[in-house]
């Protein structure tokens, strides 16, 4: 039996297909073009998927945002997994390029310790928190989940990702620590 797809799932497929093929031209945007200001993305991320969600779900909002990021990370990971042929260096390099192309941020591996299963990846110029300051704790839960999802896909195991430095806290980068569990 064919499973019914929700309208969000239909839209998701269209968006992801276009992102993964690098096709950014958008129909019906003849005058405005395919790009939007980062602040608009940040409204969606920090307001719609941030404070508004927090108003409804309290502490549960953080888990939802993390999970959403993890799902995206897994999609990106699966998209490059085949070309990487289980080579971690190639895999990370492909992900770096994809994140740069999508302007998510500049993903830079800081620590890769396969023995202890510990990874640290920097996200320079992070799209979520660029130009934001004065917060009391890291706010890029989406990116933490995304990096976790990328690592999870490669190793096919559960991971715990945590943002340990955040640009919005005054750090010079966002640093995501990932542990295989």
């Amino acid at each position, binding site marked *: 039996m064919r499973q019914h797809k929700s309208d969000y799932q239909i839209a998701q497929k269209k968006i992801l297909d276009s992102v993964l093929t690098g096709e950014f031209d958008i129909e019906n945007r003849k005058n405005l073009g395919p790009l939007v200001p980062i602040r608009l993305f940040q409204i969606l991320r920090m307001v719609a998927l941030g404070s508004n969600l927090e*108003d*409804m*779900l*309290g*502490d*549960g*909002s*953080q*888990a*939802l945002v*993390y*999970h959403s990021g*993890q799902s995206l990370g897994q999609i990106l990971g699966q998209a490059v997994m085949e070309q990487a042929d289980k080579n971690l260096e190639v895999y990370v390099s492909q992900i770096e390029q994809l994140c740069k192309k999508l302007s998510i941020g500049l993903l830079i591996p800081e620590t890769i310790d396969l023995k202890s299963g510990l990874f640290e990846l920097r996200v320079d110029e992070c799209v979520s928190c660029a130009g934001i300051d004065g917060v009391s704790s890291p706010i890029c*839960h989406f990116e*933490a*989940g995304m990096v976790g999802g990328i690592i999870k896909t490669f190793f096919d195991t*559960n991971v*715990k*990702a*945590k943002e340990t430095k955040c640009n919005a806290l005054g750090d010079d980068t966002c640093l995501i620590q990932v542990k295989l*569990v």
Partner: protein
Amino acid sequence: MSNVTAIDSRKKSVDEIDRVLRNLMNLQGVTAAAIVDRDGLVTHIRRNFEINTDALGVSVQIVFGAASKAATHVNHRAADIVICENDDGYVLLAPIMSGIMLSLVTDDDALLGRVRFELKEAIPSLKRLFLNY
């Protein structure tokens, strides 16, 4: 030497947490017992059927978060237990500490009062264990 102690102590905590979950699983009708961290990651689980742990973990946090918010909207203080009554059984959620949650899944054979009582009994022990975790 101090590192060795720390590892031993953590291993002991993991064993103790597992023992608490096993005891809860011994209750009539309980089919899964899981501990979920703040980000929705299932850190410990005992179950006798296949579960998508990623989806379960995030759902636990979302449902408990929404229930806690609903409680504040009606001027109630902290939510202690959230119970979902389904066609096929119950899902019970209870906070342990710092966003860490205990979740129990039952079939329709479970005695809700008994499960609820044992859930409440388990929370202080788990809290002690997570303080040293």
